[in-house]
């Protein structure tokens, strides 16, 4: 089986989800943003929206994040949708392309949402084939995002992280690890977050997502409408330790705040990445010193110093 080339990548720094209310501010003032991510479907077609994105792409690395492909749908992939995504990729030259581990269409009828499905061997073969189909058409590797979901199917034969690991092995795709989605699933459905972080193949993770959900009638709904929760930051720190530093996105889609609020959230992610760096630097210095015979025993820095 041939896997597609990894292609270009995003820088290992924090970025933000760029939405319409901030287009003109970003283009006119060029604020300090590591990179930006947009929803692919909003730029299908041309006109003013594509023109804006092409301008943005001249100043920032761009990640194209799809919400409408429905990779796990039983129905055939929408050829028109794939064509439009290919055309958009050719126009923008994105640093990353990603989709969700979800479905949206069955029997010709779409539910325009990110829907969960039973994690079975049959579903795995189906989804892996379709990921390859998309990667063949785009000529590049795509990242697949773990889902937030509100029900789990008893029919599942494996956990989501096992499904993702198999999907990586079968299709050569990468993983977009949405830390907030994992947090939401842990709260709502008792998903074992530690097992998830340790269960996905670290080398395949190409990006993290962070966002803030809202509690509604006893269910934590993934609204992307609030600052990142402390518990989600803790999971992010755990992911940084076990998986490593990766491009990290702050997503905010409802009640979108002023740009500086998004930048502050991105800074919080960056500080955690930088803390990893200084930690790694200390480890390196530690190793340097270990080679010096004169160093007293007590000053050695441990593995997780």
């Amino acid at each position, binding site marked *: 089986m041939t896997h597609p080339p990894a292609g270009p990548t995003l820088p290992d720094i924090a970025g933000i989800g760029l939405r319409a209310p901030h287009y003109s501010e970003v283009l006119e003032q060029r604020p300090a943003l590591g990179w930006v991510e947009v929803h692919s479907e909003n730029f299908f077609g041309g006109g003013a929206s594509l023109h804006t994105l092409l301008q943005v792409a001249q100043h920032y690395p761009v990640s194209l994040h799809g919400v409408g492909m429905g990779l796990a749908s039983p129905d055939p992939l929408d050829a028109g949708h794939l064509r439009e995504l290919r055309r958009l990729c050719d126009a923008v030259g994105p640093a990353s392309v990603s989709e969700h581990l979800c479905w949206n269409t069955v029997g010709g009828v779409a539910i*325009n949402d990110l829907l969960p499905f*039973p994690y079975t061997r049959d579903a795995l073969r189906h989804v892996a084939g379709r990921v390859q189909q998309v990667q063949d058409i785009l000529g590049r590797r795509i990242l697949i995002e773990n889902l937030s979901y509100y029900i789990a199917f008893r029919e599942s034969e494996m956990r989501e992280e096992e499904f993702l690991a198999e999907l990586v092995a079968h299709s050569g795709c990468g993983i977009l690890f949405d830390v907030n989605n994992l947090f939401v699933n842990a709260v709502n459905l008792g998903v074992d977050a530690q097992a998830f972080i340790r269960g996905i193949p670290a080398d395949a993770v190409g990006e993290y997502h962070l966002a803030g959900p809202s509690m509604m009638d006893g269910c934590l709904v993934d609204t992307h409408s609030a600052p990142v929760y402390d518990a989600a930051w803790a999971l992010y720190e755990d992911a940084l330790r076990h998986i490593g530093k990766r491009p990290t996105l702050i997503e905010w889609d409802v009640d979108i705040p002023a740009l500086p609020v998004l930048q502050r959230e991105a800074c919080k992610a960056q500080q955690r990445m930088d803390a990893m760096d200084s930690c790694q630097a200390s480890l390196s210095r530690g190793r340097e010193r270990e080679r010096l015979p004169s160093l007293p025993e007590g000053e050695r820095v441990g593995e997780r110093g």
Partner: protein
Amino acid sequence: MTNWADTLARFSAVVRTGAEFDAGAIACPNYPAARGVEVYRNNYRGNLHDALVGAYPVIRQLVGEEFFRLLAKRFIEGHPSRSGNLHRYGGELADFLGRFENTRHIPYLPDMARLEWAYHRAYFAPDVPPFDLARLADIAPEAYAGLRWRLHPGCTLLVSGFPVAAIWRAHQDDEDFRIDLDRGGEHLLVHRKDLRPDIADIAPAELHWLAQLQQDMAMGAATEATLAAHPDFDVAAALRRWLAQGVLVDFETAKGERS
């Protein structure tokens, strides 16, 4: 279909039509399974409602937010989404409004929906490179009549018995408007102009001609049909105008060659 696909077909009905779910198939340890299902039902209706709000802002102003919510609910019940791309949802609203008893007192509402959908389509239409006039120089004059022109994919031609574009323009700044409905109808071209959708008045003869071309009629036959209805029609002026405006973007010769 395999088992998991059957499960999704059942779940689709649960979310869209309120069909009962099989509680035994769903695991929800921390709240009733019905609560988890409710999130998806709410998202389904909410996302389609928001798509209609995005495509039909003037209809929403005309009927009010509250009534629009009811109207959207009724529309959604009878019109499932057919595409994973939410921007394609809602094209049948004009026909729906034509049959909707509760808005009969606003007779221009269906035409307004047609206008707004045309605007929405023009917004999301792909970019097409401008037509290279040099290509026409290679066509022998006697072959002109056989040319089949392609219109820009974002173009819609509309004829209304009401001043819908005037009403539409009056609603762009959210001000009170007074427009005499008896002032007559309009002939409109909705298209992409300088990256953005544009609503332009168009002469009836030119609309007639472009409409024939859009239905794949060869230029000669389209011109004859237009002249029969509009003897003053000037085909040379029309051709120049709509090439310059980026409305005519490509042609096929009678032999089927697309240059």
